[in-house]
């Protein structure tokens, strides 16, 4: 987790800084003002240095995924491999054009150099679009139907619609299937569409990955006795693989992950987070420059110009994040992950939720959220306590979510104030510059909390309604001290990187 978080910490700059550098370069090409070129070059140096370590932490995260969650890697690699495979090309593109953009400034025409910069942006965003499709699939697979009715407020476990090959379907007992909560939806070619309760799918997936045979598995409970006898020694994995392959082929090998619930909102929100963190970092950095430089410093004008640019970028980015993509993310959670919504809103009698604490529970939980989520104040948001215990995400995400909202509002006000000052008065008062210096840390904290809500809120699932966290783990977990050691080591690498960046970019 530490490796992935460090990767995300760095990746935000890979997503955001190239865009800012390219915009600055485009302004320079149009205005001819050399200060814009200088700003573009500085931002380029920044993302080149983080790109290298981003690639390293990406490798660490990739190997960490394979070594610690090998079963998840296997399932993703087998059934939703296509975006991962396509990400290879995004990564090559990103890498090549980052270095061309950096090294070949003197060799390329202005337009060609700008084009190389645009390709860096495209490469980084294309890469993100592939990885996030897989992450979105893990949050809300296209073939899963959530089991919450907002009109009655009743919750039921989610259902997974699978295409079962006819040969296997014939081995299943219809009565036992119905008793288990499954429902036959109809035939499609040589397969039968069956809606399975997620509890059964979760159990079968865990048993298959543990190497059990049909005879040792829960499949026996829904199979006809004679079929169960014949298939007793067959690995369950083979049967399940056949079902899942048929399902994936039917849904579309190349498109399945991209049709996950909330994919587009996720993509825009994640790229937006990168741009936001980058813009706030640039704003904080140039605020620091203005605080520390002398009044007669010849670079002061440059710092002011960079600050104005970064403040405007921060304001635009945080506004889009809050009003646009953030809302779309919320809608996706409402639609596809009602259990997560319940945890985010803390609708449990077991905790003191933030709305309750501030005395606005009625307004927020009974009017505002139903209105925003379901466009009706008659609708009810899910009750956490009514959700089955094995389907509940941890309640800690409630506090993370509200802390994130609070920080986001604070960031928005900072960006608004800085933009107003920078535009009207060319700069900002000293105390406000100091607030601005802290804003990159706040932006990172906001992003981290958002990421935490999304990932911790996915629990108990590794893939929602299909595979739980326990099933994804390695059969040979390393000792805790080794995991802690690796986490400390990666954190130290990040600290040293910060030192390198400081020396390279900022030391006179």
């Amino acid at each position, binding site marked *: 987790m530490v490796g992935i978080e460090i990767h995300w910490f760095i990746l935000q700059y890979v997503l955001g800084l190239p865009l800012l550098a390219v915009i600055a370069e485009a302004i320079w090409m149009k205005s001819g003002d050399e200060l814009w070129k*200088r700003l573009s070059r500085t931002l380029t140096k920044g993302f080149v240095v983080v790109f*290298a370590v981003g*690639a*390293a932490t990406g490798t660490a995260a990739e190997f960490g995924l*394979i070594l610690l969650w090998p079963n998840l890697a296997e399932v993703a690699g087998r059934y939703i491999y296509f975006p991962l495979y*396509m990400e290879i090309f995004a990564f090559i593109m990103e890498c*090549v054009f980052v270095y061309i953009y950096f090294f070949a400034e003197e060799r390329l025409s202005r337009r060609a150099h700008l084009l190389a910069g645009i390709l860096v942006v495209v490469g980084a965003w294309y890469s993100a679009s592939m990885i996030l499709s897989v992450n979105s699939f893990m949050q809300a697979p296209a073939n899963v139907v959530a089991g919450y009715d907002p009109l009655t407020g009743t919750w039921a476990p989610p259902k997974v619609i699978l295409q079962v090959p006819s040969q296997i379907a014939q081995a299943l007992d219809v009565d036992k299937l119905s008793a288990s909560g499954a429902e036959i939806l109809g035939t499609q070619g040589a397969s039968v569409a069956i809606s399975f309760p997620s509890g059964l799918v979760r159990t079968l997936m865990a048993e298959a990955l543990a190497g059990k045979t049909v005879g040792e598995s829960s499949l026996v409970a829904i199979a006809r006795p004679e079929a169960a006898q014949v298939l007793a020694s067959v690995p369950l994995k083979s049967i399940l693989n056949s079902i899942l*392959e048929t399902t994936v082929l039917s849904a579309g090998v190349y498109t399945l992950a991209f049709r996950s619930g909330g994919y587009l909102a996720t993509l825009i929100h994640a790229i937006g987070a990168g741009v936001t963190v980058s813009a706030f970092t640039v704003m904080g950095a140039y605020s620091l420059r203005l605080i520390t430089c002398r009044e007669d410093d010849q670079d002061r004008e440059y710092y002011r110009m960079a600050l104005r640019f970064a403040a405007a970028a921060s304001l635009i980015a945080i506004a889009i994040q809050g009003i646009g993509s953030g809302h779309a993310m919320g809608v996706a959670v409402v639609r596809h992950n009602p259990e997560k919504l319940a945890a985010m809103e803390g609708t449990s009698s077991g905790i003191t939720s933030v709305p309750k604490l501030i005395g606005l529970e009625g307004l927020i939980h009974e009017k505002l959220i139903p209105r925003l989520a379901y466009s009706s104040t008659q609708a009810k948001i899910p009750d956490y306590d009514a959700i089955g215990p094995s389907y509940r995400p941890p309640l800690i995400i409630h506090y993370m979510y509200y802390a994130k909202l609070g920080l986001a509002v604070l960031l928005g006000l900072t960006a608004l104030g800085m933009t107003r000052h920078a535009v009207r008065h060319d700069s900002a008062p000293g105390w406000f510059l100091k607030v601005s210096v802290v804003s990159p840390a706040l932006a990172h904290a906001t992003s981290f909390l958002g990421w935490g809500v999304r990932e911790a809120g996915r629990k108990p699932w590794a893939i929602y309604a299909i595979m739980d966290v326990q099933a994804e783990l390695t059969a*040979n977990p390393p000792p805790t001290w080794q995991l802690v050691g690796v986490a400390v080591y990666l954190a130290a690498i990040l600290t040293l*990187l910060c030192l390198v960046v400081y020396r390279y970019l900022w030391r006179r």
Partner: protein
Amino acid sequence: MHVPEPASVIGILSLAYGIHIVLVNLDIALATLIPTLKGIGERRGDCFLVNRAKTLMRYYASTYAVAGVFGTAFTVALLSFYPSFVAFVGHIAWTPFGLAVLTIALRFLTIAGYWYLWDRVSSRTHLVIGITMAASGLLIPFGFRAVFALLNAPFGLHLRPQPYLVASETLLSNPTFAPLYLKSVFGAMAAGTLTLASAYAWRYFKVDESLKERYASLVSRLLPAGGLFLTAMLPLGFWYVIGLLAVSQYKFINIFGRWLGPGIEPARDYSLIFILKMGLVAVQIGVLLYVFQRVLKVGELDDRSLRWTRLAGPAALATVLVGEMLNAYSQLPYFIARPDLFQFMPRHMVEALSAESVNTLANLPGVYIVTGAMLAPLLAAVAALFYITLTEAGEPESEEEIPSDQEVEDKEAEMPEHSSD
């Protein structure tokens, strides 16, 4: 029905791994040679050597990134085509892969540090970063080669209660591990040193008369070093083959194929690749011997010697590529080259260890079409990147183009980017 592993799958994996491994070998050598060159240059006050080190560093930074990208590409392609095998390795290989990943992270950081802090920290600090960079480069293959040794013969692999690996057994008991690791390190140094010698020999014929002596001097230092590393490879290669004969006869027989004589039937005969590899080694030895006898005869590195030296580097890199492919192909269709042990393994594990059990969802025409369409322009872009990094503000054409330390400082001070940002 027996379905052999698809050639297209092996082709994609070979392409990604081939580009990765050739660049990695080059980079292991460069990581060692660059701090050495810079250190010598600084000690002697020789701007030419320091500038050569800096030019090489620019090349190294970009090739290392490309090498890393293709390493990731290989891993992801392997996961797509063989998810069960990757998961199997993931379950057991925490220690060797974990070590490799830690050193990779350190390597990236030291490369970034060494490159971006050039002239921004003291020479001594910079040298320490350079030494760490070189050391991490030599250590990365340690973990990876432990896994390769495991794939030769599963020393240290226990099957019950569930498959797990005792890494110390793999390292200490597997007779193929030590020679494989040492071969990797010495082979990389040989290939990198000879490639650099070839590159400078090629440069020798492009530059002004005033600089020829400097380039010839560099070649005269690099060639003997390359020769020494190459010589060390011969007993190490023999040691590895003996190890294979002891614990992985399936692979041994496939490598030597028809040359082992009648009565021994290889499952797959890769002896032609072995012959090709030996031919490439012979080219390198031939060049070294020829240059050696020319130096004895004329007393210096003359034009004729330098002309032939240009062959050594490409031959060395091709040897790396062919050698790696031979090592990988000769155990096909098995990921662990001990089919005789499969009878003791559960069925799902045997399937995971077979290259024939390719993911049917990935083995589709659309995947290959997309691969071709995307990869072709990107490989062209990679070539453009290498061309740019090799030529942009790189090697000087004449003595006048070599800036002194003071000139370098003056020039950088004029650049806006050098002022505080």
